[in-house]
């Protein structure tokens, strides 16, 4: 068991709990609208952005955020122009962003890959700063307000975007807003669980919530708590067994998903 200074521990927990809640909330959109590969693409382009930031001596986190948001902005228009689903475009962009990330890393002077980039790749919850926690709290407040204010429209889009459009809802605007939100959440959560693992927190927690109810309102109410629990259990496991935090969170969230599948009321008869 690792002993940590209490302020460091509290800050890590605050950041992780906020990121867990956020990832899970936006994860419900991503899973339901089959945007999973879009999220993967964003997390990897954020990693490429961070690598470019290190190469150009710019703030890696800021560059990661810009790269994730740029991906969010590009995906929709490219998908419309190419007449291909956004998931397919994301599938093409995903290896491309990884290739760019590795090129940027190769161009770094000296034999050692920047520690900052590695921490963004694997996550470093103990380096979370008070401003990171504040940003996460602001984004959680914005996300919650967005969901509450536009609940009925989002609910209709989540059921079927084309049918929502036929009912007079601007489905495309809501879909774009969701992609941007996803980009922001992925970029801000990168520091905690890392670019390679952040999306597991998004998909696993939301998928767990989706296993537990048929009622979308209940799913949205449950999902942030599942995300928080995934973080806390993973963080506790990493402290207890001295394992990497990001990997531990992915493991616990995967176990939670497996358990929810086994116990899901959706698999009970009657």
């Amino acid at each position, binding site marked *: 068991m690792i002993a940590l200074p209490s302020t460091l521990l509290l800050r890590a927990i605050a950041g992780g709990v906020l990121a867990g809640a956020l990832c899970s909330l936006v994860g419900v959109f991503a899973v339901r609208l089959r945007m999973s590969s879009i999220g993967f693409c964003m997390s990897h382009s954020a990693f490429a952005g961070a690598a470019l930031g290190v190469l150009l001596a710019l703030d890696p986190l800021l560059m990661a955020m810009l790269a994730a948001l740029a991906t969010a902005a590009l995906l929709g228009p490219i998908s419309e122009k190419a007449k291909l689903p956004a998931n397919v475009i994301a599938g093409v962009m995903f290896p491309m962003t990884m290739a760019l990330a590795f090129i940027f890393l190769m161009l770094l002077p000296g034999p050692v890959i920047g520690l900052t980039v590695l921490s963004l790749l694997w996550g470093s919850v103990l380096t979370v700063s008070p401003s990171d926690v504040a940003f996460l709290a602001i984004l959680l407040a914005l996300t919650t307000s967005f969901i509450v204010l*536009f609940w009925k429209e989002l*609910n209709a889009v989540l*059921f079927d975007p084309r049918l*929502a459009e036929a*009912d007079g809802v601007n489905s495309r605007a809501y879909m774009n807003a969701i992609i941007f939100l996803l980009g922001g959440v992925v970029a801000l959560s990168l520091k905690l669980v890392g670019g390679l693992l952040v999306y597991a927190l998004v998909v696993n927690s939301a998928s767990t919530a989706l296993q537990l109810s*048929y*009622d979308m309102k209940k799913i949205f109410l449950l999902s942030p708590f599942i995300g928080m629990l995934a973080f806390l259990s993973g963080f506790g496991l990493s402290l207890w067994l001295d394992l990497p935090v990001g990997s531990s969170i992915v493991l616990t969230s995967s176990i939670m998903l497996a358990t929810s599948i086994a116990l899901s009321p959706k698999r009970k008869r009657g």
Partner: protein
Amino acid sequence: MEVVVRLEGVSTTYEGERRPAITDINLLVERGELITIIGPNGAGKTTLLETINGLLPSEGLVEVFGLSVREHGRELRRRIGYVPQDFMVEAGTPFLVKDVVAMGRVGRIGPLRPIREGDWEIIWAVMEELGIADLADRPIGKLSGGQQQKVMIARALAKEPELLLLDEPFSSLDARSRMVVCEILDGLREERGVTVLVVTHDLSAIPEGCERIVLLNEGRITADGAPDQVFASEAFLRAYGPVRAVIA
């Protein structure tokens, strides 16, 4: 009479296609009319309905309630009830029947205003009328095809539409349910002057009370008039062949 739908020289071509799905369509629909659009498979019936609903880009004049669907599409769709063809959801779809029906009111209400008590009264009344109120708390994916079709009809009616566009609305319904829906449509026309356009390829599914039939064949309107007139026309024979026994 008030014209609700006006189409003049309308052609709709799907992207990547050279041949239009519907060509040079001219159609006037008056308030309170119940029109059945018939035609064999691939005649362009669904394309015509989606063009009127502003969901497909088209050439020519398409006006609903005197407004161009090109410029006012979303605003108009808030007044139009639409039931898509063969809409079925997966078994695990996480939405309850009452919430899906309530979605019908979303466009009508507009953003930033929640669904209130008065809206729920309308939603429950529609579900009662269609006999699905007892299914309200069930997941939609657990229902049969016919029950899901009733949910989609209820969703369109919950909007309190001024124009109803129904694409093969009876395809999964039994005879009794068809009768119930037809009675509801008659009531809406008589009490509120709602205009109804029903698309069907199945001639036995033409709703009772239908006084006008539009026949589409190969993307063109080839007959338009009273049912007897259309069924007796050469165009009908060309489109369907000798099937008079079915409609007798």
